[in-house]
C-alpha cells in the first residue's frame, strides 16, 4: 500500500569514488544512512563486523598523511577487510612511471579496492582507467578533489544542524589550491547549501571571479564571493576554515602570513558575527593562530574533533558500499 517498502537499493551506482561531482543527492543520503550504522559500530566495545571479510583493500599513498591513511586503514579493518598499506616517497624522479607499473601489479593482485592519495591531480582517474575490476577511492589528488573528506564534512553539518539545505556555509582561505574546497563545492551544491567563498583574490580560481559564470546554468552560479570576512560571516551557519600553507606566501600569493591572519583569521570576535549556534570546521591539520584562533579551534562551537571520528565512519560506509556494490553488479 504505502511506499514504505524498504529501499532495496543499498549499493551506490558507482564503481569508483573519485569526486563528488558524480554523486547525486540520493547517493549521498544513502552513504549517510550507512554511516549512521557505522557510527553505532564505532561506539561498541568490540569494534568489528564481518562485512568485508576476505576482501583486500590497498592504500596507496604517494603523499605522507598519517591522519587520512590511518582513518582508511581503521575503517577497512573494522569491517574485517585485509588492509595493505603501500606508501611511496613520491620524490623519486620516475613518479609517473612507477604509478603505471604499480597499477599493473595491483591489478594482478586482484585487490577489491584501492585508496589512493597522490600529489598529481587526476592520479585516481589514471588508475581507474588502467584497472578493470578494482574500485578506486580518491583520498586526495593534487589540488583536484578529496571526496571522502567532503562527505564527512557534509555529514558533520547534518549531524549538528539537522540539515544542509539552505544553510549558509562560508569557506575561508586558500581556495585555489584546496582539493577539500573543490569537492565541498560539489557536495554542498548538491545538498542545497548557500555557499560563500572568502579569501584573498590571489588565492581564488580565476573563473569564479568571472561574472559570466552567473549567466550560465553552471551548478556553481550561485556561489557568492566576498573578500571581506566580516561581511562574509554574517549569519553564517557553518564556517569552514582551510589550512593556509606557508608555500603560498613564498609563491607570491600573499605578502605575509601575518597579514593573512589579520584579514582572514577566524577569531572569537569574528565568530560572534555568525549565528550563535554556528559550527566551525577544519579539515586539519590546523595552523592555530593563522587561519584559526586557538580559542575558536577548541571552543564550544568547534566540531573539528568530531570530524575525525566521523571520518572513520564515512570511510567505512564508502568502502562497504563500493566493495559490496561491485559484487552485486558482477553477479547480475
Amino acid at each position, binding site marked *: *500500500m*504505502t511506499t*514504505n*517498502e*524498504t*529501499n*532495496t*537499493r*543499498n*549499493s551506490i551506482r558507482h564503481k569508483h569514488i573519485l569526486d563528488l561531482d558524480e554523486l547525486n543527492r540520493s547517493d549521498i543520503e*544513502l552513504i549517510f*544512512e*550507512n554511516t*549512521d*550504522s557505522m*557510527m*553505532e*559500530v564505532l561506539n*561498541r*566495545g*568490540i569494534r*568489528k*563486523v*564481518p*562485512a568485508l571479510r576476505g576482501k583486500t583493500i590497498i592504500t596507496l599513498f604517494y603523499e605522507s598523511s598519517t591522519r587520512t591513511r590511518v582513518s582508511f586503514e581503521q575503517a577497512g579493518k573494522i*569491517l574485517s577487510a585485509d588492509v595493505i598499506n603501500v606508501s611511496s616517497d613520491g620524490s623519486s624522479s620516475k613518479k609517473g612511471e612507477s604509478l603505471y607499473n604499480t597499477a599493473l601489479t595491483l591489478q594482478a593482485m586482484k585487490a577489491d579496492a584501492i585508496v589512493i592519495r597522490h600529489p598529481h591531480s587526476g592520479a585516481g582517474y589514471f588508475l581507474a582507467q588502467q584497472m578493470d575490476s578494482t574500485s578506486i577511492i580518491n583520498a586526495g589528488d593534487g589540488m583536484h578533489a578529496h571526496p571522502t573528506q567532503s562527505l564527512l564534512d557534509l555529514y558533520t553539518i547534518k549531524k549538528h544542524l539537522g540539515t544542509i539545505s539552505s544553510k549558509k556555509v562560508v569557506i575561508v582561505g586558500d581556495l585555489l589550491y584546496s582539493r577539500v574546497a573543490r569537492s565541498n563545492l560539489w557536495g554542498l551544491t548538491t545538498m542545497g547549501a548557500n555557499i560563500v567563498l572568502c579569501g584573498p583574490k590571489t588565492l581564488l580560481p580565476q573563473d569564479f571571479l568571472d561574472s559570466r559564470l552567473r549567466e550560465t546554468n553552471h551548478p556553481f552560479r550561485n556561489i557568492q564571493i566576498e573578500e571581506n570576512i566580516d561581511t562574509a560571516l554574517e549569519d553564517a551557519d557553518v564556517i569552514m576554515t582551510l589550512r593556509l600553507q606557508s608555500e603560498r606566501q613564498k609563491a607570491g600569493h600573499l605578502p605575509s602570513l601575518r597579514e593573512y591572519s589579520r584579514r582572514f583569521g577566524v577569531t572569537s570576535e569574528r565568530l560572534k558575527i555568525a549565528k550563535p549556534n554556528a559550527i566551525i570546521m577544519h579539515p586539519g591539520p590546523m595552523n592555530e593562530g593563522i587561519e584559526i584562533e586557538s580559542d575558536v579551534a577548541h571552543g564550544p562551537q568547534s566540531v573539528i574533533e568530531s570530524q575525525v571520528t566521523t571520518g572513520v565512519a564515512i570511510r567505512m560506509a564508502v568502502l*562497504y558500499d563500493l566493495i*559490496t556494490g561491485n*559484487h*552485486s553488479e*558482477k*553477479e547480475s
Partner: protein
Amino acid sequence: MPLADLGGGFFFGKTSLISNPSSTSTSMSVKKIQTDVQMKRALTRISHEILERNSGAKDLILVGMHSRGVPLAFRIRKLISSYEGQTVDVGSLDIGLYRDDISEKPQATMKPTDISVDINGRIVVLVDDVLYTGRSIRAAMDAINDLGRPSQIQLAVLIDRGHRELPIRADYVGKNVPTSKEEDVKVKLAEVDGLDEVVISSPIT
C-alpha cells in the same frame, strides 16, 4: 475481499487474482493468509509462551530485527507488560554488516543497531516477521555475540515459511506456512504499512 483461510495454518492450491496496488509485478497473484485479528491472536500466544518458557519476564530482552521485527518486538513488549506488569527492554538489530549473501541479493537500507543495555547474561529473544532460510538469524546471532554474551538466545517469528538452509529453528512461531521457493511471504504492519495482514504472492504460471 479476503479469501477463506482454512485455519490450522495450511494453505495451498488455488489462488485468485487480487489486484494489489503494492504488488511489484503484474504477473503475481496475491493471497491474504492472515488477518489482523489472526495476527493479534498469534502475538498474544507468543507472548504467553515466552513468559511460560522463561518463567516470567526477568532478564528478558526483546531484540527486533530490522525492519518489521522491530514493531513486532514492541508489540510483544506491550503485551508482556499488560500481563506481568513488567516492562521488558527492547532493542533493534540490523544484520547488514553480517550477511553472507551480500553478492546475491539486493540489500535493504541499513539502520543502526540500537541495543542500549548490556546483554551479558540476559535472555535475548530475537523477533522477526518471517523465518525462511535461516541465514538472517545466523547473521543476527553473530551480531549479538559481538555485542556481548547472553545466557540464551531464543527466536520468535510471526511466520515460518520453511526451506531452511541452516540448522536453525524458531522457539515461538505464529503460523507455519508451507511455501514454494517462487512464492513470497510479506508481513504488513500498521506501524510501517498502514495495516495488519500477511500475504503470500505467487507467480502465475
